[in-house]
């Protein structure tokens, strides 16, 4: 479930409410507020903040994970800039990201419009079914799609053959041209459900009167969508795109299970390159440097999206 960062966009600490004197007095009578926060902060500090600092530290070293780390300054970053495989992985992440921003969002939007704007029989059932793939673990998704893509006994090639299109049969995951799109499709199969659920709720919260007014003014269905619906849901729409973009930058599980980055690195992505360096080639320092860059890319992407959201005006 890629829904974590959604909330980071939703609430900013509210100074006015939190600092009411009556509350302060009431709290003083019992335990200090620090005691309430302490256990959470302790775990968060130990298993999120501290590792982050260590990661940056590792990235300045040459280390095989067992011997004493050698401080080599910025050498890892210098190497990284000249590493063609790093750039190839980066490009795959960006391709995945643009596809992720567009495709699941559009499918989710189309389904959301149909499910939210009409009064179909059984639409909660449809919603539940379309969301279902989202809850599966990556290994289950991978196992299903690896089999669908299988060259010899896969359902896709079997269906192509049955349709008389044998010439279109491929070794999907074994082909340098098709492997990355194939893994992406398996991911998109799960990702559109998230977009759909958020957009259904967004569309349902748009005041029906706007649509009625537009109808009276003679606006057709398409015009109602572009002139009223899309502007009204632009904020949740950006949230959905941001979530998919971040998920694309974090892509690991499906690639690791389905292709291990192959064939010939045609599906190599940054997170997998991090993993391979740190845990397979035991180049912990270099892997950490890639991880730091990946972290920075994710933060920048989030900020860009927040900025776009800001440009679209404040809440309401």
């Amino acid at each position, binding site marked *: 479930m890629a829904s974590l960062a959604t909330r980071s966009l939703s609430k900013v600490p509210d100074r006015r409410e939190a600092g009411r004197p009556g509350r302060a007095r009431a709290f003083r009578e019992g335990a200090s507020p620090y005691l309430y926060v302490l256990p959470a902060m302790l775990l968060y500090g130990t298993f999120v903040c501290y*590792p982050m600092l260590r990661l940056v530290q*590792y990235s300045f070293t040459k280390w095989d994970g067992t011997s004493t780390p050698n401080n080599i300054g910025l050498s890892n970053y210098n190497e990284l800039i000249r590493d063609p495989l790093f750039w190839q992985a980066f490009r795959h992440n960006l391709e995945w990201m643009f596809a992720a921003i567009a495709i699941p969002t559009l499918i989710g939007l189309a389904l959301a419009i149909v499910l939210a704007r009409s009064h179909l029989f059984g639409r909660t059932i449809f919603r539940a079914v379309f969301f279902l793939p989202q809850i599966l673990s990556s290994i289950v998704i991978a196992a299903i799609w690896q089999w669908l893509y299988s060259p010899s006994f896969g359902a896709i090639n079997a269906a192509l053959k049955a349709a008389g299109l044998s010439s279109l049969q491929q070794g999907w995951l074994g082909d340098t041209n098709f492997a990355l799109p194939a893994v992406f499709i398996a991911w998109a*199969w799960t990702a559109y459900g998230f977009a759909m659920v958020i957009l259904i709720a967004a569309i349902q919260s748009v005041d029906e009167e706007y649509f009625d007014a537009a109808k009276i003014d003679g606006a057709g269905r398409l015009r109602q969508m572009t002139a009223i619906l899309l502007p009204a849901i632009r904020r949740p729409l950006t949230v959905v795109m941001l979530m998919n973009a971040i998920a694309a930058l974090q892509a690991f599980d499906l690639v690791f299970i389905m292709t291990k980055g192959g064939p010939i690195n045609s599906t190599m992505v940054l997170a997998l390159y991090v993993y391979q360096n740190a845990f397979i080639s035991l180049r912990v320092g270099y892997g950490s440097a890639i991880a730091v860059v990946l972290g920075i890319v994710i*933060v920048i992407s989030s900020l860009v999206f927040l900025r776009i959201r800001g440009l679209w005006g404040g809440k309401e």
Partner: protein
Amino acid sequence: MRAIPATLLLTVLAVGVLFPFYLVLSTSLKDDQQVADNPLAPPKHWMWSNFSQAWVDGHFNQYFVNSVLVVVPTVLLVLALSMFAAYAFAVRRFRGSTALFALLMVGLTVPLDILIIPLYYEMLDFHILNTLWALILPQVAMSLPFGILLLRAFIQDLPRALLEAARIDGCSEWRLLIHIVIPLCRPPLLSLLVFVFMWTWNQFLLPLVLTQSDSARTIPIGLSVFQGRYVTELPLLMAGVTIAFVPVVVVYVFFQRHIINGITAGALK
């Protein structure tokens, strides 16, 4: 009348989404011969033995127990610790509260992909590598920012008069939290419970790196080991896949509304 083409289209799409599930289930109940004869047809005679064989040969009993032993403490810890912290952040501004909260929110964008390297060496230092604790503690820590954000927003939206009245009646903060706020927080707590259950149950990278033997492996890693061994024995593999996804689907069917409410609550605020 105009709804009929839309319903038809949606039904076709829904069948498309469900088709892979059908394939997995029907294949898990076939033998190799039936798969070879017609991979898409439903099973002729049902091979329930595939499940018992997968369960025993694939050590799924061990993986299942491990998954439960990881998920239960993780969920309980996240619910309790998020609740305490969210309450303090919601009702009180204290020295450093804004900074601490901002620090927590950074955690919403930090992916496990980059934390995993230092986490490995941290677990090594703590001597808990290849134990269930190595899976529980980071999972709790990474789930806390979301839990705190979700609950804090909900508590801030509670009617102020209710909390004030209890305070005037001499209710201590602790009793207020236990007897009034927590019962009122049932909806977000349920959403949080389901989310953390799913994240933890489906977690792949953490156990991939931090476990090395069956004694600590959870279902996703167990299934991936199993997949490596039975790549050509499709019915057995699909029985394993079924064992892995049935618990989440059951939880989803019962708590579907809470999942969807939890997702939309945050995104639309």
